[in-house]
Structure formats: C-alpha cells, structure tokens
C-alpha cells in the first residue's frame, strides 16, 4: 500500500495521471455526445433514434465503438502509408493538447500557464495540418478537396476567431484562462457576456461589443470544428465525407473522437471567455471544486447542444458565402469591436 502511495506521489506519475483526466473526460463525453446528438437530431425531425439497445438505446454508442474496434483497418494501396497512419493521431493530439490549459474546475487545470488561450489557439491549429495530411495521404481527389476546403476554411475563420479572443484578452488583461475565469467569479452579473466585473458605466458600454464578439467567436468556432452550416470539408453529398473517406476502423473513430473533442473545446472556450467558466451563476452558492467542474461541464454541454441544434437547423453554405461571412462580415465587425473595446478600457 505504502509502495503504491509512494509511486503515486512520484512527480512524473502524478503528472501522467493528471494528464489522463481530460482523456478520460473526452472518451466519456464523446460517447454521451454521440448519443445526445443522435437523439436531438431525431427529435428535431420528429423521429425517435436508437430505441433497441438498452433503455431508449442508451448503450448504442458503446455498441458503435465495439463495431469500430472490430472493423478492418484498410489502408489504400496507393496511399502514402506513413502520413496516412500519422494523420488521425496528429488531429487528435492537436485537440487533446488544447485541453491542457482548460480550467475544468477551480481545483483542476492541466497547466496553469500565463499564455493559456494563446497556446490553445496555437495547439488547436495543429488539427489543420492533420486534416490536410489525411486528405493528401489518402490519394483520393475527394479527400484532397475536403482537406483543401478544410484548410481554407479553418485558416480564414481563425482570423475573426482570434480577433474575438483578442478583444476578450484586452478586457481581462491576461491570457491565463484560470485568471479569466476567476475575474468573472461572483455570479451571473459578473460574466463577460453581461459586461464583466466592472463599474456600471464601463459594463454597459462593454455589453454590446461583448455580445457581438460572442456571436463572432461562436460562428468562427463552428466553422473551425467543420460542422454544419460550415461543414464544407465533409459535405457528404458532394465530397463523400471529405478527408476521412478512406479511413476505416479505429483511425476513423479517432477522427470522430477528435471532432467531438474539438466541439467541446470550442464550447469550453466560449464558456471560459463569456460565460464565467466554472463559476457558479449564483455567486458563492453551489461553488466548490466539484460543483465548479459540474458548472463547467454543464455550460460546455449547453453550447454543444447549441451547436447540434444549429447543425440540424441550417443548411450548408456555399464556398463563396462561407468566405464572404468570414472576410466581409466577421472580420470587420471584430476589428471594429476591438477598437471600441480599446477606447472603453482606456477610458
């Protein structure tokens, strides 16, 4: 027993265990979200979705996972084998690495670094490399199209997204995500979407700009996770799933997992920036290490739900419309907001 405790107290072992917490969370979350998304999608279309496996089909995601585990792992003959195998892991690593700076609760953050959100933007950009790699290595023109579209889309939406983050960073004066969350502590009135924990005049002045920044970040984050209405890279009706056409079995599952993890990641960023992260909406009521984790996941999941809801509401955009939204609408608005926020913060 003592040996085990001593082993667990080794700094290296503790670090590995702490690093595994987000992974466990992602795996459980992905299973829940697959079920959740299917149910929401079905009910929006007045259907029922899974009903056979377990009570209302609750164990269907596990059955799906077992199926994917058993499937043959096909690598096309003409594919670039090394890149083909590497790509899904790179995509997942990019997403997983981003979880390092995510403040899950007041007591748990993988790495409490001052560069927090900057690191997050940088690490999640690795996903683009992975997608492009997957599309190129598949040696399939549809995959290649999907990957190119994906790269074009993510790179162009990174700009309004990052500008929105910049506006928020200007307000908080820090990039540390734990500090950002703590600055919004004390109830719903201190959340940045309402104007943050500032004097009343400044708060009222900030409110409209924060709301616009929130919309901008929400839209660009949806584009970054390649979901409808911005799912051009996948576009199953024209591109046959895009970059992951040639993938099967566990490699496909990893792409899928990364997609869902990415979905939670961007939702969590929205929550941390605008909706007070893990802070309780009732001030000190229901706030503690465990409660804060609960609030964080709850808020994150509600934005995941918003994403799913939008996915089953809006049709896919055309490529030129997609670029129009990014360059002609979101980017100028974000720049305008940054200038306005700069003035407000100086005054």
């Amino acid at each position, binding site marked *: 027993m003592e040996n085990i405790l001593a082993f667990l107290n080794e700094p290296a072992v503790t670090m590995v265990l702490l690093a595994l917490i987000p992974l466990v969370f992602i795996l459980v979350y992905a299973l829940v979200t697959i079920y959740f998304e299917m149910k929401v999608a079905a*009910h*929006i279309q*007045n*259907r*029922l979705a899974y009903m056979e496996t377990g009570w209302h089909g609750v164990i269907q995601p596990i059955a799906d996972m077992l199926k994917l585990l058993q499937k043959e792992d096909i690598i096309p003959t003409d594919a670039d084998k090394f890149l083909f195998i590497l790509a899904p892991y790179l995509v997942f690593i990019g997403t997983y690495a981003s979880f390092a700076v995510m403040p899950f609760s007041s007591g748990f953050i993988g790495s409490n670094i001052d560069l927090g959100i900057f690191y997050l933007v940088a690490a999640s950009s690795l996903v683009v490399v992975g997608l492009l790699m997957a599309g190129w290595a598949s040696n399939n023109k549809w995959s290649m199209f999907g990957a190119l579209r994906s790269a074009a889309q993510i790179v162009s939406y990174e700009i309004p997204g990052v500008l929105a983050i910049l506006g928020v960073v200007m307000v908080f004066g820090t990039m540390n995500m734990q500090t950002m969350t703590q600055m919004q502590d004390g109830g719903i009135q201190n959340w940045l979407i309402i104007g943050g924990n500032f004097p009343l005049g400044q708060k009222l002045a900030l409110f409209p700009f924060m709301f616009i920044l929130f919309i901008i970040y929400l839209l660009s984050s949806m584009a970054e996770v390649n979901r409808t209405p911005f799912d051009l890279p996948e576009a199953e009706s024209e591109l046959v799933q895009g970059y992951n056409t040639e993938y099967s079995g566990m490699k496909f599952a990893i792409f899928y997992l990364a997609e869902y993890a990415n979905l939670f990641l961007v939702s969590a960023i929205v929550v941390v920036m605008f909706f007070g992260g893990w802070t309780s909406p009732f001030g000190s009521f229901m706030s503690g290490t465990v409660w804060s984790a609960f609030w964080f996941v709850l808020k994150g999941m509600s934005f995941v739900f918003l994403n799913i*809801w*939008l996915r089953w*509401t809006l049709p896919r955009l055309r490529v030129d419309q997609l670029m129009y939204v990014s360059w*002609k609408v979101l980017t100028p608005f974000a720049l305008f907001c940054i200038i306005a926020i700069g003035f407000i913060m100086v005054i």
Partner: protein
Amino acid sequence: MTALTIYFNDIYRAISSALIGMRITIRQMVSPTVTLQYPHEKKQMPDRVRNRLYMNYDDCIGCELCAKACPVDCIEIEVMKAPPTETLGETSTGQKKRIYVTKFDIDIAKCCYCGLCVFPCPTECLKMTDVYEFSEYDRNNLIYNFGTMSAVEVETAKLKVKQYDEEQTAKKAAAAAQAAAAKAAAAAQPAPVPEIPAAPVTPAQSEQPKGPDTPPTQQ
C-alpha cells in the same frame, strides 16, 4: 439602396432567418414524434388490403378457375376426378366435392397481388389476407403447399381412380358386347315390324350407367 444598407440588411436577414429556423426546430424537438416502432407496433391495415394469399383447402372443389384467372401463373393445381363411390365431403357452402385436389401450390414470389383469383372461386375458399411479413431465406419456401393430401393418400386415391376406371372400361366392354349380342340377335331374328322400334332402344339404355351420376345397375 446603397451598398451599405444592402450589407446591413443582409446581416439582419441572415440572423433573423437563422433565429426563425431555430425556433421551428426547437418546437419540433419538443413536439411528439411520429415514429411507429415497427416490429413492436404495427399499423392497422385497411379492410380490403391485398397481401398474402390464403387458401382454405377444405373448401376447394378443384375447379381450377383461380389458376386460369391468374395472370402470372403462380397457382399450380393438379386434380383428379374421384370415383362416384367415394365421398369427399362437402364444402362449407354445402357444395359436394367430386374431385381430388392432389396438389394446390401458390408461388407467392410470383404473385402480383392483383386479387383476380379471388373472385372466380365458387366456394370463396381463396382470399387475400393482411399478412405482409413473409420473407424467407430460401426462395423455395415461398411456394406454399396448401394441399393437405399426403403422398400416401394421393397414391391411394390414384389407385381407387384407376380401379374404378378399369371397372368402367370392363363394364363398357361388357355393355358393348351385350349390345352387339342384342343387335346380332335382332338381326338374326326377323322380328315383327311394329315391334322393331323397341329393339334398338335396349342397347342405348344399357349404355346409360357409364355416366358418373347414376350408380351402375348391375354389380
């Protein structure tokens, strides 16, 4: 409109239409579903639905009208006339059965569900049911054998028919011989003229028992 108003108008329209769409989808989400959990729940079929054919073998009189009516020849019937001595029973409509139906097969895979075979049936033994779940792994299982006669029964029936036919031919030969004898007798003996018409009638009468309805006079 200037370019700027168009620009802002577009943004307004995009956001408002997205919100309208979201309102519709969230309403649909909470409204009741329309799914029928098929293998567990089934829809009530209409009264005159035409699905799998059902045939009541006990009522069949072997008239083959259904097989003739079938446009795709999916009904295959083999019949054999029963000897009048045999009693095959009656149909539920009170009609006497006189024919052995040794085979009554319906190949439901060929059936086009037109229902044309149902109407000609004089005893109403053929009808279309509302059963629509009859998939099979082997195509041959879709040939339904409605005939309940076993191979042994068919053989016995065949024997009986053969026996009866032989008896009949024997009888006919005997009757023919008798008639010939009578004719010969009539020819040999110049009978009185007024009585002649009566004499040719006799052979004709002796041939009558050949008909299946009347039981043979001799025996």
